Each structure stands twice: as structure tokens, then as C-alpha cells.
């Protein structure tokens, strides 16, 4: 086991920048997810850690060892690939045994280790099969087996469950997390699925266009995104954004939109003032932090808005309601199952004032 530290790492492909000045520390035995959309530089980062890509500049350390110039085989890492990358001509047993054979381990030792790893993943009955005879989930388990069989310093996962069907993916999330807790090996896991990151990681590093946006616990990332991009990327369904203006009336500051206004709490106002803001702001509020009721009122009051239902989508446990505030502005609300309303019906939306986010409209940086 080892801690991993990435220091001022850049990656260029020709003239194209893939990773920009990345600094990232991964504590020993912890589980870090690198989260971002495709092309954000997360896979490049992982491949640089594995030694499969050249590091354009900067340093990578495993513990105290600088690994920049070490070949993959000398880094003592194990990696699970997005497409599993099993050896098609070898049986499951031989696939898992391969890293041990390459280290000239004795046959008995190999047999016992492979059996132990396979038992952990419940794939012992598949030993004689070839990869072509396995289902997606089984292949993925074999790929993980090949990784865990030799107690490496660091596990690298490159979207290992992205290609499984939704149900199996949800199942494997739990399995993988359990496995990591059991083995206590430093793990770096790349994914574009925010659900995977939130549910499995100790800490999440969010990347966008080669730039690290935020590092934090899943809780921090979800509840305190540092900018509009992170706020919009993390969370399903995604956060609503409404362009507003700051207005002051007497002592109080308000976030004002043609269809509603929200007073700021004293603490929110302080955070805003210290950031020396422009009056143009963007309000962010998650669908979960909005309350919806049918009907109409003459004056909805502060922190509430009148709207008309655009569409309702029952999704089992909840109902998602898309509400039209104005011609251009819509808000998505998550409400109880069985919420009834037809397209065009009037409704009232109430914001949870403590759970709103405010961003600079210019830079996207979060005020709170």
C-alpha cells in the first residue's frame, strides 16, 4: 500500500492539452474517485499513474518513490480496464494467474492465491472457461480478480463497470466498495458516473477540460460545490439554474427574478459581501430542495414562485415535475409519488432557503 501524490502534472497530446497543472494527494488505503465527463483528462491521469502514458511535465510519487520513469511492470500497480482487456486465448484461471506467473511464483502459491481471489469474487466455477464464454459481469469480475490477486500498492480502475447493465452496475458498486474496504488498498477509480463516485469514494476529484475543479468528500462535493460546473455535473436530476439579480431593500439583500424573490440569511449575505459581488448572479437549487403544491395564490410571498406545470414524470418513488416559471425559465422539482397535475395547471413552488446556491454569472464561482 502507498499514498499517491500527483504534483503539477501536465499532459499534452501533441499540442492538445489533456491535463493542466494537476495536484492531487491520495491518502494511503483510501478510495479516490476521479469524476468528470468524457475528455476531461481523467483517463489520461489514470494512465499516467499506470505508466501507460508519458508524463509531459510534473511528478508522480507512490509513497516516497518518484515513479515518472518506471515502466508499468515496475510500479507494482494493478489496473482494471474499461473493456476488461482479458487475454482471449487463456482460461479464467490463467488470466488471473498471469501477473503471478510473470513474477515467477511457484505453482502451489499461484493456485492458492488465485483460488482465494476467485473465492472473494465468487468465480471459482468459471476457472476453465475462456473469456468469450463469459457474461459481461463475469468478465468484469475476472478482470478484478486479475487485479487483486497480487496485492499491489495501488489499484487503478478505469470505468470498470461502465458497460454493465444498470442493475448489475448498482450491484457491483456495492461489491467494489466492500472489496476495497476489505483489502484496504489505495484505490483510484475513474468514472463519468456521478452516482458511482458519490456512492463509493472516500474522496472525489472532479475534473473538467483537463482542470481539477474540486476535491472533497462526496458530501462536500454534493452540498458545497465550488463552482457552477461542479454543481451542475453532480446530482441527478441536475441542479436548476436561474439567472437573477441582487437587490437590496433596507437592510436585507434579495435574490430577485421576475417571478420571485428570495431574501438572504444574514450569514449568506456576509459570504456574499466578502466576495465583493457583481449584481448579476446565478441561483442554483436542486430539484430536491423545492416544494411544489397545486393551485394558485394571489401573492406567493418571499421565497416562492408561481408557475405552470410543463410535464410530470413519475419515476417510481418520486415524481419529477417540470415547471414553467416564465417562457424561457423552467425548474425541475422532485416531489412525492402520486403528485397529480396536468400540463398547464398552475402551481406554487417554494424554495428551501438554506439549501440554495449562488454563483457569479461571470466566472461561475460559488459564493455559497
Amino acid at each position, binding site marked *: 500500500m502507498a499514498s499517491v501524490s500527483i504534483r503539477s502534472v501536465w499532459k499534452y497530446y501533441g499540442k492538445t492539452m489533456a491535463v493542466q497543472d494537476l495536484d492531487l494527494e491520495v491518502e494511503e488505503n483510501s478510495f479516490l474517485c476521479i469524476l468528470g465527463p468524457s475528455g476531461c483528462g481523467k483517463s489520461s491521469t489514470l494512465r499516467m499513474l499506470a505508466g501507460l502514458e508519458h508524463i509531459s511535465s510534473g511528478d508522480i510519487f507512490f509513497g516516497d518513490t518518484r515513479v515518472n520513469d518506471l515502466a508499468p511492470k515496475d510500479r507494482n500497480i*494493478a489496473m482494471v480496464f474499461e473493456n476488461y482487456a482479458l487475454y482471449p486465448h487463456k482460461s479464467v484461471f490463467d488470466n488471473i494467474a498471469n501477473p503471478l506467473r510473470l513474477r515467477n511464483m511457484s505453482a502451489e502459491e499461484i493456485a492458492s492465491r488465485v483460488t482465494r481471489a476467485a473465492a472473494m469474487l465468487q468465480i471459482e466455477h468459471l476457472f476453465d472457461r475462456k473469456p468469450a464464454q463469459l457474461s459481461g459481469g463475469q468478465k468484469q469480475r475476472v478482470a478484478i480478480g486479475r487485479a487483486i490477486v497480487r496485492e499491489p500498492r495501488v489499484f487503478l480502475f478505469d470505468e470498470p463497470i461502465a458497460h454493465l447493465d444498470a442493475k448489475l452496475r448498482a450491484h457491483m458498486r456495492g461489491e467494489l466498495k466492500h472489496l476495497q474496504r476489505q483489502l484496504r488498498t489505495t484505490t483510484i477509480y475513474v468514472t463519468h458516473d456521478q452516482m458511482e463516485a458519490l456512492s463509493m469514494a472516500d474522496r472525489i476529484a472532479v475534473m473538467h477540460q483537463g482542470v481539477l475543479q474540486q476535491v472533497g468528500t462526496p458530501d462536500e462535493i454534493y452540498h458545497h460545490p465550488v463552482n457552477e460546473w461542479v454543481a451542475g455535473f453532480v446530482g441527478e436530476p441536475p441542479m436548476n439554474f436561474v439567472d437573477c439579480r441582487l437587490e437590496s431593500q433596507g437592510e436585507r439583500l434579495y435574490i430577485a427574478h421576475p417571478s420571485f424573490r428570495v431574501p438572504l440569511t444574514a450569514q449568506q449575505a456576509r459570504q456574499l459581501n466578502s466576495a465583493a459581488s457583481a449584481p448579476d448572479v446565478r441561483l442554483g437549487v436542486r430539484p430536491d430542495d423545492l416544494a411544489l403544491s397545486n393551485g394558485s395564490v394571489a401573492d406567493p410571498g418571499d421565497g416562492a414562485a408561481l408557475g405552470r406545470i410543463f410535464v410530470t414524470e413519475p419515476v417510481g418513488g418520486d415524481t419529477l415535475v417540470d415547471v414553467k416559471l416564465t417562457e424561457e425559465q423552467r425548474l425541475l422539482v422532485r416531489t412525492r409519488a402520486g403528485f397529480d397535475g396536468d400540463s398547464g395547471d398552475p402551481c406554487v413552488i417554494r424554495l428551501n432557503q438554506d439549501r440554495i446556491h449562488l454563483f457569479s454569472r461571470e466566472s461561475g464561482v460559488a459564493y455559497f
Partner: protein
Amino acid sequence: MASLDIVENRSPLRPLGRALSILFLAVFTLWTVLPIFVMFVSSFKDLLQAFQLPAVGDWGAIGIFFDFDPTLAHYYNLFANLNFGTYLFNSLAAALGSAAISVVLGSMAAYSLSRVEFRGKKDLFFWIISTRMAPVVAVLVPLYAIFRSAGLIGTLPGLILAYTTFNLPFAIWILKGFFDNVPYAIEEAAMVDGASRVQALREIMPLVAPGVGAFLILCVLFAWNDYLFASIIGSGGAKTLPPATRELVQPQNIQWGSIMAAGVVTTVPMLFLGLLIRRYLVTGLTMGAVRE
């Protein structure tokens, strides 16, 4: 998964089409198999019996074709008096030697061309195959001059080198295609598992085995059936079967029996090679390790 079923729709022309294709196949089979059959049978006949033919149109007398006393005299003559053992060895050595060298060098070159990006790669790739664009005859005279000054005329290494020159570009082209089809991720997995680059290449060699097998056949066939190189560059010390067979046609005497036997000796090894490698080829790429 797409099935390979051919959907047949009923139509009035179908039986006719079927009959025509059977007729075509029958004629084609006769056309290709008959000469080989005649060669094979004649090699076991003595000269008198070999030339006993029924009169034209007398189908009833076709039996005399099979009415003979089998003899191995021609084969005995080939190996005991005409030194065909040496020629057979030369043929085998030249064909297998050039095939082996071409496979080793070809797979290394093909691997590099498939995996590494460098400037001028496309031009290099085209240049490699362009060496095969000129017919053998066109390069034979300069090649002869070069080989003679290098002392390679009439030697087995010279012949192997000549065949390799012609097989290698072919090997690189065929094998590059096969390497391109092997996902790079498998090698990366091997390297992460603890393999060096060369070990990783060895790890994926079984995946290009069908390609190597296909290429081996082509390579061996080219050298085995070659007459031009063999008669000019191999002449003298490294005579192979084709020129040796040609020498059985002498101005005053065409040794039909020995020629037929030599034909059989030349054909049979390739027949077995074909059978051997066909099994290997149909095994095919075991895909499915990587999600498509």
C-alpha cells in the same frame, strides 16, 4: 448476434439455378482434380501402361486406365539415381527457412507499424509493399549481379535470402492487419500485470496466430513453387524440386514416369501442410475478451 442463415425464398427459377450450380461444380471439380489424379496414377505405372489409352469415344474401355501393375520404380529412380533427396531437402530448407525468417522479422516490423506512431509511417508502409510491385523477372538481372558479387549464387542461404526479400513485405502487410485487430488494451493489461514490452508482444502472439498461419502457407507456397529464382539464383548448389523436375525433360528423352513421380513428390508435402494449417486457421481468433 447475427446468424449466418441464408434466407431462401421460393421462386420458379430456384431448381434451375441449383441444377446449374451443381453442374458447374462437377465440371470444375473434374477440371481441377483430373490432372492431379492422372499424375498420381501415372507415377505408379510403367511407361508402356501409362500410354495405354482407350480410343476416343470408347467409354467402355475406360477400365484400361486402371488396369496396371503398380510399381515404385520411378520413385526409386528419382531418389536413388537422380539425387532427388537433396533437391527435396533444398526445397524444404529454402521454403521453411525463408518463411521462418519472414515471420520473425515480419511480425516485429508489423508490430511496430501497428503500435507506434512516427513521422513518415504511411510512406514507409507504402514503400515496403512497393518493393513487391515489380515482377520478379524485372529485378532478377540486378539481383543476380548483386548475389554473384556476394558469393550467394548457388547457395542455400542465397536462395533463402532471395525468397525472404520477396516474402517479407508481404508478411509485414498481412501481419500488420492482424496486429491492428488485437486491442492494445490487452498488451497494456499485460504490461500492468508485470510484463515487459517484449513479453507483452509474446502474450498477444497467439492472437495473431491465424495470421501467421495464413502467411506461412503463402510464404512456403511461394518459395516451394518458385521456378525462376530457383533456376537462376539456386542453380548448381541449391537446386530445388521445380528446376530438377524440369531437367527430366531432355532433348532426346522425356522421362514421363519420373516427371510424374517428381510431380507427386512436389505436391504431397504442400497437401499435408494445407491440411495441417487449415485446422489451425479455422480455430480462428477467439474473440470476446474485449467488449466490442
